[in-house]
């Protein structure tokens, strides 16, 4: 169950990350597009850093769970 849950979680997060690109094709897009382009595009940097942070944390949690599993099995 754990493994499946984690896979689903990762998949969901990836889908979340993709969603802004999908919005950009629609008519409501300009709002988010404008935000991203405002303030010298600082939001772009922020988005990049947050993506990195999310993936790092997911990875860290994954390692943590693997260690816990190993601890239990010994």
């Amino acid at each position, binding site marked *: 169950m754990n493994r499946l849950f984690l896979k689903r979680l990762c998949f969901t997060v990836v889908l979340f990350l993709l969603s802004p690109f999908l919005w950009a094709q629609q008519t409501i897009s300009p709002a988010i597009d404008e935000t991203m382009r405002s303030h010298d595009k600082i939001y772009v940097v*922020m988005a990049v850093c947050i993506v990195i942070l999310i993936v790092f944390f997911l990875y*860290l949690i994954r*390692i943590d769970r693997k260690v816990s599993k190993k601890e239990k099995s010994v």
Partner: protein
Amino acid sequence: MQLKWWKILCIIFLFLTFTAGFLIPVPIIGNLHQSIRNFFFHVPMWFGQMGLLTLSLAYSIAYLRTQNLKHDIYASEFAKTGIIFGILGLATGSIWAKYTWGEFWSNDPKQIAAAIAVLIYLAYIVLRSSMTDFDKRARVSSVYNIFAYFIYIPLIMILPRLVQSLHPGGLEGAKGGGNPALGGDSLDSTMRLIFWPAVIGWLLLGIWISSLKIRLSLLANKNLIHE
């Protein structure tokens, strides 16, 4: 999905750092401009290192008192993560230095002292790997670790304050004066509001990574550790 409270705190604080850290208005001081936001990323590396190395010191002392190999494993893993933080601190510091002081490496007393401090701890790792006997390794490296800490603190906290330095915190000189990290006027109250969570978040991240390595090492050395 069970995460300990401090791991959740770490995640929250680092997300705060990475969002508010980019978005809050910052004071423009000297030639720092927006790069003052490095306060949320570069400075916590050193705070994190100090925290991790202090933990390492505490466990080295605990080892010498109890002769329990578990404490030696704790001490070594905290020190190793501390070194990573130190190397990151040096690297991020040089990048920042390039665009404020003009050079990646200007042989500034603070830079040299910080580099020596990291090297002293690298020697700790070399010393550890040079011995195969577990008890001997633990004892010798614990003693070395205690010495290293008391060289480390003067190197990064005291020496840079005694000389002129480009880094904040040196004697009144080119730009110096004040506290190395939190000069009285160099941080305004909004920045402090992000800065302290950032410090705690990064420190907790260091502890988290160390704790994983500790748990793995405890598993690998299970037969050596007796409660």
